């Protein structure tokens, strides 16, 4: 077993701690794969007994990369439980926050977390700056920084950096691996844009700072937002603040249209074979999001809700987050225990009793026939599904939404590949770019909606009718959802006597990185790795390509326990 088993741990350029093990077949392709989340923090346990109005702050700390998304799901869950309707400006500002997060997070993912799987930094040293400039001007005629002088400077920087002998974050990677296909000029262009994107990402998130006071971890509020609006005051959201937001949206436009998308298509064009690798499950789930009215009105969502099974784009199935037969979590291969007789639980009654049965560290391998992950296995009507940009784009496309059809057809046309190419590692990476294009356009639309509301005299951002716990029912429950950059995210809360009695979170990376379920069905990461060719088992860049195409976010791998608090009492360490 051990001889042909590849272990990648830590998987780097992700959030959190992920371990991948893969077994190669004689044909050099992966015939078995295992995905293990190796961190558990227990946030749902910590939330019990707390004030539900505080929950967003705890939940937001689930992830600082996709910051804000858990705060949004949390305030929505509490508002849903308490029957609070957020004023229109509050909803629009939340949409602006979320779209800002999409644009920032996706661009960072592409350049800083994913690109080095496709771009060979060392090869860039051989590039001719003049030829690079010509390439760059062809790829993106409107991007201003593409002169030979500019690329000469970048090349000089890179050369001196490499010659210094201190390669820092670039050392020991798979440079020179035959799987890298870009010519030196394209590599140099990509390295230059890695640096440009790093400079820019700190700018767009200033939108979060305006409305939420800081980033990472901006502030949210049950009932709306705390950023009061007063056009006649210099101590509230006023025209100066709005101008700042608008300027940052305009910069983001340029980055997405003239840097990210052209680079994405240029890089993808060198890797057409990856349009046939890494498809995985072929089942896709999106909760939908970005309401034009209110989160209880899915018909108004910019991202539609639905499920696609078996790559069937002719049918979008409905999703109900409260139906106990739809979303359920299993722990067959997870380091948790369920009460006797329970195999799968809906989040309203979900529990997590940690029960470590894996090997005692330090260990070499995990065993897929046993429990092997701190993640549970969420399933929709028993199906393993994939969530994330590809799921959203496919659900939008299959729902017949024109905006989605337009961006998909345009990209496929440019790459010269059929629609089936979307079911792949490359498709997943491309879908992220396509929805970023939608997101940056929607961002400006939401900004304009906010200005129109203000012009009409509406300046309310929060509904405080139910702020005081004395106005709450003795017992109530609710759910909140969002489409995080990485996919469908939802929180379920039960409030009892003004306190959180139970809190359950099912996150995108739990869907995607989940271990096998009781039927032996793989999670999305595992399924996507099956059949992938690996040229050199000692340098498995192919595994990183597919895993990174999901944009893993593992800190979210924390789960709930029973309401009696029977936690951690039976941990067994072998």
């Amino acid at each position, binding site marked *: 077993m051990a001889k042909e088993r590849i272990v*990648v741990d830590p998987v780097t350029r992700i959030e959190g701690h992920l371990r991948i093990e893969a077994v190669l077949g004689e044909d050099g392709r992966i015939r078995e794969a295992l995905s293990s989340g*190796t961190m558990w*923090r227990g946030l749902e346990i910590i939330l019990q007994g707390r004030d539900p109005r505080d929950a967003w702050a705890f939940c937001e700390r689930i992830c600082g990369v996709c*910051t804000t998304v858990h705060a949004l799901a949390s305030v929505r869950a509490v508002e849903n439980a308490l029957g609070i309707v957020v004023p229109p400006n509050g909803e629009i500002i939340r949409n602006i926050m979320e779209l800002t997060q999409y644009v920032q997070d996706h661009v960072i993912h592409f350049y800083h977390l994913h690109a080095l799987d496709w771009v060979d930094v060392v090869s860039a040293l051989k590039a001719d700056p003049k030829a690079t400039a010509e390439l760059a001007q062809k790829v993106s005629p409107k991007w201003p920084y593409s002169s030979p002088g500019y690329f000469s400077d970048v090349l000089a920087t890179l050369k001196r950096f490499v010659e210094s002998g201190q390669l820092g974050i670039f050392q020991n990677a798979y440079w020179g691996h035959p799987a890298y296909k870009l010519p030196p000029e394209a590599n140099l262009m990509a390295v230059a844009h890695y640096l440009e994107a790093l400079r820019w990402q700190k700018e767009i998130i200033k939108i979060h700072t*305006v409305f939420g006071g800081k980033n990472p971890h901006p502030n949210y509020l049950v009932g709306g937002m705390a950023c009061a609006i007063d056009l006649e005051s210099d101590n509230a959201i006023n025209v100066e603040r709005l101008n700042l937001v608008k300027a940052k949206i305009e910069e983001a436009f340029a980055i997405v249209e003239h840097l990210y998308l052209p680079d994405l298509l240029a890089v993808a064009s060198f890797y057409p074979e990856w349009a046939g690798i890494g498809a995985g499950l072929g089942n896709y789930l999106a909760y939908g999001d970005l309401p034009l009215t209110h989160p209880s009105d899915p018909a108004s969502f910019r991202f539609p809700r639905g499920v696609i099974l078996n790559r069937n784009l002719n049918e979008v199935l409905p999703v109900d987050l409260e139906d106990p037969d739809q979303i359920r979590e299993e722990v067959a291969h997870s380091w948790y225990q369920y009460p006797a007789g329970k195999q799968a639980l809906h989040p309203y009654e979900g529990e997590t009793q940690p029960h470590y049965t894996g090997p005692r560290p330090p260990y070499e391998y995990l065993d897929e026939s046993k429990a092997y992950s701190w993640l549970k296995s969420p399933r929709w009507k028993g199906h393993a599904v994939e969530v994330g940009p590809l799921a959203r784009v496919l659900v939008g496309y299959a729902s017949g939404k024109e905006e989605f059809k337009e961006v998909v057809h345009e990209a496929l046309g440019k790459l010269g590949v059929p629609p089936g190419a979307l079911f792949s590692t490359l498709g997943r990476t491309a879908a992220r770019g396509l929805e970023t294009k939608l997101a940056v356009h929607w961002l400006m639309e939401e900004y304009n909606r906010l200005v129109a509301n203000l012009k009409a005299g509406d300046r309310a951002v929060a509904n405080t009718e139910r702020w005081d716990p004395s106005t709450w029912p003795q017992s109530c429950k609710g759910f909140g959802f969002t489409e995080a950059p990485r996919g469908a995210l939802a929180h379920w809360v039960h409030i009892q006597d003004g306190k959180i009695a139970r809190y359950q979170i099912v996150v995108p990376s739990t869907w995607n990185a989940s271990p096998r379920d009781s039927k032996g069905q793989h999670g999305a990461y595992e399924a996507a790795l099956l059949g992938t060719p690996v040229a050199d088992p000692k340098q498995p860049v192919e595994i*990183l390509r597919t895993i990174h195409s999901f944009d893993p976010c593992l800190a979210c791998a924390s789960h709930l326990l029973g309401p009696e608090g029977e936690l951690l009492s039976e941990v067994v360490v072998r």
Partner: protein
Amino acid sequence: MGEKGKWPTTYEVLSSHGVSRRDFLRFCTVTAAALGLPASQVARVVEALETKPRLPVIWLHGLECTCCSESFIRSSHPIAADIVLNMISLDYDDTLQAAAGHQVEEIRERIMREYPGRYVLAVEGNAPTKDGGIYCTVAGKTFLEILQETAKGAMAVIAWGSCASNGCVQAAKPNPTGAKPVHELIKDKPVINVPGCPPIAEVMTGVLTYILTFDRLPELDRFGRPKMFYGQRIHDKCYRRAFFDAGQFVESWDDEGARKGWCLYKMGCRGPMTYNSCSTFKWNNGVSFPIGSGHGCIGCSEANFWDNGPFYERLTAVPLPGVEATADEIGKTVAVAAGVGVAAHFASFAVKRIAQIRKERAQAASKEE
């Protein structure tokens, strides 16, 4: 990786990148200013950057959410690319580095072996200690073991953020994983605590540039925090302080007071008990800070801030303008403050403040309690 003597200095790296002498000097001046140094100290910055090679840094991630790394890359002066490419040699960092798996662990082992006592260990997150530390493993080893092993040869440890410096969210009650901050696990090395959830970007890069520039660790307070960034409470320099002193408070979210920028104390603001630079430097290159955007401070740089009562419950111990405080109330103040680990600062503040209030009482408007 070259040997020590072969490493170019920061200035050599910068100049070979085409940075002119003039620009380099300007950079040093800006760096000195960012560190709060007088102009007479610029020469020391220049000298340090001219004579030293880049410092190897190993950046480990334990139980955390990566908000500290995200904050770090938001730094505007200096920008993250300058730090990573020109100022330090960031040799190990799961979040940003290109290599993965055993190639990464090789780097960590090599730095520990070849540069004993000459690298900085930066830690984001903390270590679970319960049940043998099984709640966080990397490469099949517990994070606890990796942390202890890597700290051995470090010249100093930087505990980035509240997770590393005081435990933060996973250590909140009932702390199901037994998560412990770095200073409770590493006792034989200097540990610099840089709290905040996350810390302000320029505070993070400021701590690094201070070490690089002056070849020493910054002066720390008794909680291990650099005094230059954590010496004052947010309340001390909050632009809404004038409204606090005048007794003008936001009474309900989105009310007229909120629109006029009145004080958020009654909405639960923790500014009066939180030591950080938010009201000085602000966030994301000075755009705003939580109070500036209408929400109270939740006290994210104070130890155990998650367990200091609900965020929207007003602090009971803060003397209000025009309020006569009794000895009993001073006692209560100390009790609350002890719970958050700032007893001495807080008590002395409370005593001074009460004396001041008594003096000003005649002209202060009596509004509350």
